[in-house]
């Protein structure tokens, strides 16, 4: 059972996919640019959703790759490249945070606190424009560095088949864990929680983390299953290998519900005005229906859809559920962000569509670019053969 028995033929993705990606990107980009001209504030709020969504998929995928190395996961070895490709989205993150840094005054009112606002004045040592920009850039550089080292070793292994490279990546992954934990928590606090700077929730970082992992897993699933079913990956992958994807999606759906409910229950029970105001803003007017929709899309549908064992291995079901989960993550970020912009009334229009369309295009194009340059399967990985033979 040596890894040399793996047969892999590199295949180009159909040109149709690239056309779809290009169209999406162009349409999205036009809407975004128009949005910034017509209504910069509203577009900036959407930009936050877009940035946190893309960061979720990019950084979450890197976390996913790292945790596979750390756990010594065998089943995921044939799929690991998909996670690596998606984590390359880290490189294009500045595309989304630079326009925001230029519009900070519109969305973050802590940038110009009233002198009488004691809370914001006292939070100013952390929440100020300079330190904010430093954090954003430093976090991005950290993610970039870990992305670079992990994928470099992985690529090198395709040629050299050196097993020590796996060991090296395990060490880098171990280092990445605390970095990931801190950067993702502070990203959540900086970009999302500071939109309502008087409000606070100590579990907020974990809340964004749970969504991040879900989004990364769902994005990976959406790519892995069609690629594997249509033979772009290696031959002989059994549906048992999909089981772990389904199980992880199911587990993190529950984790999200657990964290979201923990945040809600404590605030609801204590009933302190300074805390409940945040949930009230999401329960007033027609925001109530958005909140109920969040429960349905983020928890009920994936929970019921992935509960049984066969459904976790059914390719069609997995793609549908992963799409619902990925949509729900965007929906969740919208739910976190938009009520700060329009209180009591749900705003939804063409401006809201710009970023999701653009990001879908970006993801597809980056993925195609990576598939052209690299193998879709880590053919040098010592665990690959065992991963293909994986059975429950």
């Amino acid at each position, binding site marked *: 059972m040596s890894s040399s028995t793996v047969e892999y033929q590199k295949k180009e993705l159909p040109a149709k996919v690239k056309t779809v990606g290009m169209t999406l990107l162009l349409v999205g980009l036009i809407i975004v640019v128009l949005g910034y001209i017509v209504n910069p504030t509203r577009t900036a709020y959407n930009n936050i959703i877009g940035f946190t969504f893309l960061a979720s998929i990019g950084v979450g995928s890197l976390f996913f790759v790292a945790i596979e190395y750390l756990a010594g996961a065998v089943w995921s070895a044939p799929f690991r490249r998909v996670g690596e490709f998606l984590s390359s989205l880290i490189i294009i993150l500045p595309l989304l945070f630079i326009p925001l840094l230029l519009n900070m005054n519109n969305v973050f009112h802590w940038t110009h606190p009233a002198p009488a606002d004691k809370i914001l004045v006292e939070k100013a040592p952390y929440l100020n424009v300079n330190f904010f920009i430093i954090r954003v850039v430093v976090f991005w550089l950290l993610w970039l560095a870990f992305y670079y080292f992990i994928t470099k070793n992985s690529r090198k292994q395709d040629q050299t088949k050196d097993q020590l490279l796996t060991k090296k990546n395990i060490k880098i992954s171990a280092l990445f864990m605390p970095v990931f934990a801190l950067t993702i928590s502070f990203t959540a606090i900086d970009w999302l929680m500071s939109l309502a700077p008087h409000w606070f929730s100590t579990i907020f970082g974990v809340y964004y983390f749970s969504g991040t992992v879900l989004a990364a897993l769902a994005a990976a699933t959406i790519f892995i299953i069609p690629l594997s079913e249509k033979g772009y990956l290696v031959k002989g992958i059994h549906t048992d290998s999909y089981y772990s994807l389904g199980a992880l999606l199911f587990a993190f759906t529950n984790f999200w519900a657990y964290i979201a*409910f923990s945040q809600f*229950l404590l605030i609801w029970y204590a009933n302190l005005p300074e805390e409940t105001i945040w949930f009230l803003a999401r329960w007033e007017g027609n925001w109530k229906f958005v909140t109920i929709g969040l429960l349905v899309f983020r928890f009920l549908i994936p929970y019921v859809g992935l509960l049984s064992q066969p459904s976790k291995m059914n390719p069609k079901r997995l793609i549908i559920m992963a799409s619902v989960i990925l949509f729900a993550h965007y929906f969740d970020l919208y739910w976190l962000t938009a009520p700060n912009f329009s209180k009591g009334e749900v705003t939804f229009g063409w401006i809201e569509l710009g970023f999701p369309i653009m990001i879908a295009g970006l993801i597809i194009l980056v993925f195609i670019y990576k598939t052209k340059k690299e193998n879709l399967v880590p053919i040098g990985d010592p665990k690959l053969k065992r991963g293909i033979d994986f*059975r429950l």
Partner: protein
Amino acid sequence: MMSEKILYSFTAIFDSPDEVSHATEKVVEQGYTKFDVHSPYPLHGMDDAMKLPPSKLGYVALVFGLSGMVAALLTMWWISAVDYPIVIGGKPLFSFPAYIPIVFEITVLSASIATVLAMLFVFFKLPNNSHPLHGTEYMKKVSSDKYGISIQAEDPKFDEASVRKLFESLQAREIYSIYWDNEELTHKHKILEPKFLTFLFVVAIISSGTAYFTLNKLMYMIPFNWMMDQPKQSAQQKSLVFSDGFGMRQPVAGTVARGYMPYEFKGKPDVAGEKLINPIPISIESLKLGQVKFDIYCSPCHGYHAEGNSRLRGQFPNPPSLHSEKVRNWSDGRIFAVLTEGQNIMPSYATQLSVDERWAVINYLRVLQRALDAKETDLQ
């Protein structure tokens, strides 16, 4: 000896997981259904090779989980919204968010307990703890470092010669035939014998009775008695401190209780008539109070209009009319003395009427008297 025994199964030993899964696929191909595979550890992909249907255990978990969920929800709803509704923390009686953690826990608890019990008693068929494979050479090998297949004799396609041939063609290392122990076939569970059940019943009664007697009679302790036994003097208790031995002490001479006015003219109504002055000025409130009290305490004998013609007339010595010249000319203090001490057959009303109420009654009596004996000036 051997011929008396009944065949349970034919078993074959293999050296590696790959061989045994290949052999399993062949066994399935031949159409055998009653067979089992044994290995020292779980083999991935064996369910598939054996063509086992998906486990039914998940349904047990689902059904019991859901019923636990519903039971927890209904219980809490009934307790806190129906049977004993108390508003807690300003929350609604049926506060669903507060129930979710408990509903979640009960769901998990009932699902997991039901799963374990169903697994043990339905799927593993406990307490059936004897099996023909136990204690055989075959079982010793497959529980250490070998892999084995056992095809049972009750399989409809079972035939000694063909099974042996199949195993040989699969290059089994060793082939064993496994026989039932006669005792295993004839054995009846002792657990169902009436003698044992009676014994169990008696033991249950004795042990629970002993436990009850020991805990509730022999070892009974008052939970805590710090409030019952306090180092203080109780009323009626003998005192070791005071020389007269009384726990209760007299108040200092001349002490007057709050709200208590001593009556100095006991047995001397005429003196009271001279010295006591009505302190309550005539007012609507005072007269209304006087009327209420008069109607309650005085009217049963003297009548509502103080004419002595009450509903009790004839049952007692007739009470006098209070419109007589004598009473009209009495001072307020003199009447106060009658109310306080009683007169002839009339008892004292000092316990029923407070001092102020007595004066109010007197004020009201004056109104009644005046009503029957108005002055010239009143008519103008």
